[in-house]
């Protein structure tokens, strides 16, 4: 499949589609692309490969980038498209997820039946603990929550990246957060 931006944006004529400013800004997003790639791959080496593939495609397709639009969102779209292509290429290696079962599980209410303001604070959750909980989410939910709550993209931008309808994106964010809530509360002592 193609790069979304390259499909939907008319190719601009003439030279000068990509200048030093484009390169500098694109490269300034390497940390957040890498962090996100870590959530999309199994190993740091795979994440690095994915980021490099993203930049290769981005520099090559720079002429199709619409100046004035969000370069970071465009790079993230390329990243996710590349990750999907890889997943397809390596379908034999991927672990099939029973997505319906996952979605059913996610439908359940926060556990405990005793949801009080105290249990909702969760302020003593440590960064690594939260990171581990995020990484343990089913892939679709993890991506949506990560892009929204950590990378702070809009629903529409996330929909483009994940190639999913807006309603699906919102529902994945919702279910991802509820799963996280359950998970983090189960880690707490009963009387926390």
């Amino acid at each position: 499949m193609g790069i979304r931006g390259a499909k939907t944006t008319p190719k601009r004529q003439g030279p000068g589609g990509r200048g030093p400013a484009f390169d500098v800004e694109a490269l300034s997003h390497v940390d957040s692309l890498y962090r996100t790639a870590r959530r999309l791959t199994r190993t740091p080496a795979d994440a690095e490969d994915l980021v490099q593939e993203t930049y290769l495609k981005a520099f090559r397709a720079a002429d199709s980038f619409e100046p004035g639009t969000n370069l970071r969102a465009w790079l993230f779209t390329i990243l996710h498209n590349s990750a999907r292509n890889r997943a397809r290429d390596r379908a034999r290696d991927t672990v099939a997820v029973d997505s319906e079962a996952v979605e059913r599980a996610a439908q359940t209410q926060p556990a405990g039946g005793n949801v009080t303001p105290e249990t909702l604070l969760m302020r003593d959750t440590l960064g690594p603990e939260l990171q581990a909980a995020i990484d343990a989410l089913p892939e679709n939910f993890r991506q949506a929550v990560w892009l929204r709550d950590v990378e702070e993209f809009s629903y529409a931008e996330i929909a483009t990246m994940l190639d999913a309808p807006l309603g699906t994106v919102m529902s994945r964010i919702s279910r991802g957060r509820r799963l996280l809530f359950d998970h983090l509360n189960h880690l707490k002592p009963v009387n926390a």
Partner: protein
Amino acid sequence: MPESSFPGCASIDPLVTPYVDGELAAAERQIVRAHVQVCPACLARVSAEQAVQRLMAESKASLREEQASSALRTKCGALAAGMEHGADIRPRVLDTLARGTWRARLVPLALAATLVLIAASAFIYQLTARSPRLMAAELTADHMKCFAMNGLLGTHQAAATVEGSLASGFGWQAHLPDGPDREGLALVGSRPCLYGEGRVAHIMYRHNGRPVSLFMLPRKQMPNADATMRVLGHEAAMWSVGDRTFVLIAREAKSEVEHLATFVRASLH
């Protein structure tokens, strides 16, 4: 456990996330507020999402601690620079590719000049069902991709290492041509290619600095494959020895590619 027993919960549920994110219009926001005042189940949902959303917001600094390695930064920076320096070879090849379905699969040839040889496992599509020209095109795509990636990674292997991996990976006791430097050839590094379904050996050289790929397909894929053809701006020379099919690819003159093929062919079986 709270139940969604109030009428209207089903219509409130999709509003919970945008409500928590402050993305609802005033009227819808008011509907959610009024509902959760009388519905503990939906209040619990809103509270749970709010708690997580706030926790994430407060933990953002920690979640963003992970950084790209300096090596990755360097590689990506080199990529930007390499694309500029590769401008002479880019337009023609890439414009050709951009017209077809190749555009998303191919990466441009963006190379540092440090490489010298690659033996890699490459995956190619079901070759038996395809024409020699399509096979050559697939392999040319792998050729470009592998060299671009190797340029980034700076891998490097000795002849003995390459021969060892050909023996263990393909049961092929290959003897790489002696004295490649006499022909202006230098051996490079190794990197697995990601495309396709079949496994092929991919040996990479530089010829006077320019990338040359030699593919070995372990089963005879093409009858009468002895030919040289032009694909994607490259020349591809093909031949078969026993069960093995060889394809040598470079962006050089046809006569030069055929000369290199003859040289390689004398040693490799």
